[in-house]
């Protein structure tokens, strides 16, 4: 048990020691205040203060290398756990000027070499269903039921292995108004699907028909609706919410 040390000293000594301690104390408080002011005077990097952005990028390295693995699956729920009223959140990239009948998925193999895949060809791939707790970055979640083809099956079927060696995949809507970038490890995850069904029915327009991304290892902001183009890159593809201050990785 620690014992308190005691000393008999003069009141002048006490005053001196108190003064020294409080000088450090106020210096510390001033440091905190100036640190806070300094932080908020830093330039922004894609909508986030630069020092914060640097740490967020480091967090990605820490958590994706320590944790992210194909063995970690989002929990699959039973069919009756899935909600019938699926929340619709956000309509960026979902303009009216779009004809699903003439739509084809565009996969850029390399600049100038684009592969066109029809919905029927995607439906011809093995079908995978996921019933998982969809998590929005706003903080709500919903158990929802989706069906589609594994992204990794598309890669396998169309010989995109070389492209999938790159660090990122980029996706954008046909009108380019909404776009996301995703690390390859996450997009090749066994639960990541190119989704054309919701609750066993064809995907509704407001949920991104004819084809959307469902990627349970990410927040909803990465589940791009109405996929127009997919491409691969070793640089981070532009990302709609990243540019508005959110974390690029946004992994769960």
């Amino acid at each position, binding site marked *: *048990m620690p014992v*308190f040390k005691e000393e*008999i000293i003069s009141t002048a000594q006490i005053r001196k020691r108190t003064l020294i301690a409080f000088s450090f104390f106020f210096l510390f408080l001033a440091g905190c205040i100036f640190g806070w002011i300094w932080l908020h005077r830093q330039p922004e990097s894609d909508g986030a203060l630069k020092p*914060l952005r640097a740490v967020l990028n480091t967090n990605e390295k820490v958590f994706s290398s320590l944790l992210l693995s194909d063995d970690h699956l989002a*929990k699959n729920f039973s069919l009756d756990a899935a909600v019938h009223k699926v929340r619709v959140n956000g309509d960026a990239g979902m303009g009216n000027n779009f004809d699903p009948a003439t739509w084809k998925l565009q996969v850029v193999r390399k600049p100038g070499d684009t592969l066109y895949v029809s919905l029927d060809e995607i439906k011809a791939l093995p079908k995978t269903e996921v019933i998982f707790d969809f998590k929005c*970055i706003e903080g709500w979640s919903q158990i929802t039921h989706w069906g589609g083809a594994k992204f990794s099956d598309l890669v396998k079927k169309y010989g995109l292995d070389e492209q999938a060696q790159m660090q990122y995949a980029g996706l954008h809507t046909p009108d380019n108004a909404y776009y996301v970038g995703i690390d390859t490890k996450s997009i090749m995850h066994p639960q990541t699907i190119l989704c054309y069904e919701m609750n066993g029915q064809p995907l509704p327009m407001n949920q991104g028909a004819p084809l959307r991304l469902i990627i349970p290892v990410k927040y909803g902001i990465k589940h791009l609706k109405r996929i127009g183009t997919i491409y691969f890159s070793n640089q981070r593809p532009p990302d709609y919410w990243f540019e508005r201050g959110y974390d690029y990785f946004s*992994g769960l």
Partner: protein
Amino acid sequence: MPNKKIIKKHPLAIRWFHWINFPVLAIMIWSGLLIYWANDVYRLGWGDKTILKFFPDSFNKALNIPFRLAEGMSLHFVFMWLFAINGLLYVLYLLFSKEYKLIFPNKSSLKEAWQVLLHDLRIKKGLPPQKKYNAAQRIAYTGVIIMGLGSLVTGLAIYKPVQLYWLCAGLGGYEWARAEHFILTILFSLFFVVHIVQVIIAGWNNFRGMVAGFEVESIPPAIAEPEEEAVANTAPLNT
């Protein structure tokens, strides 16, 4: 000038941990408010009856909280490191310095804490003998350590609910983990209020102890002789 006795109460390390934690926890709570606003579903009440909404619109408006989710997240996921590291070092320090013996509750703490409560509420006079902290303080100060750990664990569970699925499931699932994380924040805020009131009541000497490390006691003339000093070692401290 007359001499006085100083009693070295708080080691330097504990004072640093304490004062670093203060702004860091404040930033964590502030950024947490910015995040929580984006899905502010919690309330006190039953059925359609709401006694208190977390948080009233006037509160959000007054603090300019709305539409700052991205900013809140960027702060939260940066300062979480400082909160975690400072807290971890604090606990390690308590264990290795044996200071924990002065803080963790013992067998009689629960009974004595009740007496402290009655005393503080001016219902009963007299306090049980104590060392550094009274029983109520032991429980409260150990409680916040557990709360801090709880905030870390529930926070991790909602930060990486897929990769740390076992953790999230152990806390009752994603929605529960988020609610627990929120409740802990409310408890921290309540702790803070009581702590501030108690510090104000305890007064300057006690506050100086947390900054300078020592408390001052005047020496009654009768025991001012050097050979009597050792006796005072066993005297209880006030706060």
